[in-house]
């Protein structure tokens, strides 16, 4: 039997997607930039790092593959935070097995029926995809 640890990622490539804010409205979608590195590859781990704008707990991540199938539907972004932003002992790396991800049709969505004061165009977070090559 092959030994397997969730922390062992063989030959990974890291890509970053920095998402910028848009005018504040509930259900607003913030699409990720196109990145061909995920095409035909498997995403094994996703971690998020917020870039200091606050209100971290209103975002959900939806990931689609290149066939348009929704693999991950509204995953709470807070659960993908990388240490040490995640407080206490809550942080555990989340492992995925997502084939042929299309970042250009994947998006962050935010749910907030109230109004906000976050400046438009400010970076929200950096998403790191670890790929199996």
């Amino acid at each position, binding site marked *: 039997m092959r030994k397997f640890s969730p922390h062992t990622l063989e030959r990974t490539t890291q890509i970053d997607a920095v998402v910028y804010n848009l005018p504040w409205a509930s259900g607003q979608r913030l699409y990720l930039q196109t990145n061909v590195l995920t095409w035909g590859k498997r995403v094994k781990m996703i971690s998020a790092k917020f870039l200091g704008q606050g209100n971290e*707990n209103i975002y959900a991540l939806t990931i689609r593959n290149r066939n348009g199938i929704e693999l991950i539907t509204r995953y709470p972004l807070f659960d993908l935070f990388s240490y040490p932003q995640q407080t206490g002992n809550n942080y555990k790396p989340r492992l995925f097995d997502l084939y042929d991800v299309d970042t250009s049709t994947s998006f962050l969505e935010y749910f907030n029926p109230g109004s906000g004061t976050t400046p438009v165009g400010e970076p929200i977070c950096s998403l790191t995809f670890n790929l199996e090559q």
Partner: protein
Amino acid sequence: MAVPFFKTKKKQMIAQPILNRTYLFEVPLGTVAVQSKVNFLYNSNLEGKEIYGLQAIPSSFLAFAPSGAAAVTVQGLSGLVITLSVGSDEQLYQFPASDFFPGNVSGLIRMLNNKIVNISKSYATILDVTNLTSNQSLLLNFIFNPMQKN
């Protein structure tokens, strides 16, 4: 002897599930009252799928549900019990909702060992309204296998 870890079809032993598909499921609580049951609504994304992980998402992780309703708080989860109807013989499995919040269990995701959950026959029961308010929503993140089992 109980196996402490999740065993995949490839005979790999891991402590946490590998997420193939996930779906954020919303359970609107409506008017909260002690002992009231809130039925889960039919969802074509989850019906008949093998569920192998479940997370309860409190407001500290996602403040609002997709509908715009406020999410249940961490404290509010402790007043809820989730009952899942499982398999063709509809066995009922009951769990405290707070046990599915990773923050309460060292960040781990609870695993269900590929159970086919009858979503529309599952429900949440309100046991304590102290930390709940009407029209909040319980958020459950289902982790499931894309292969549908007949």
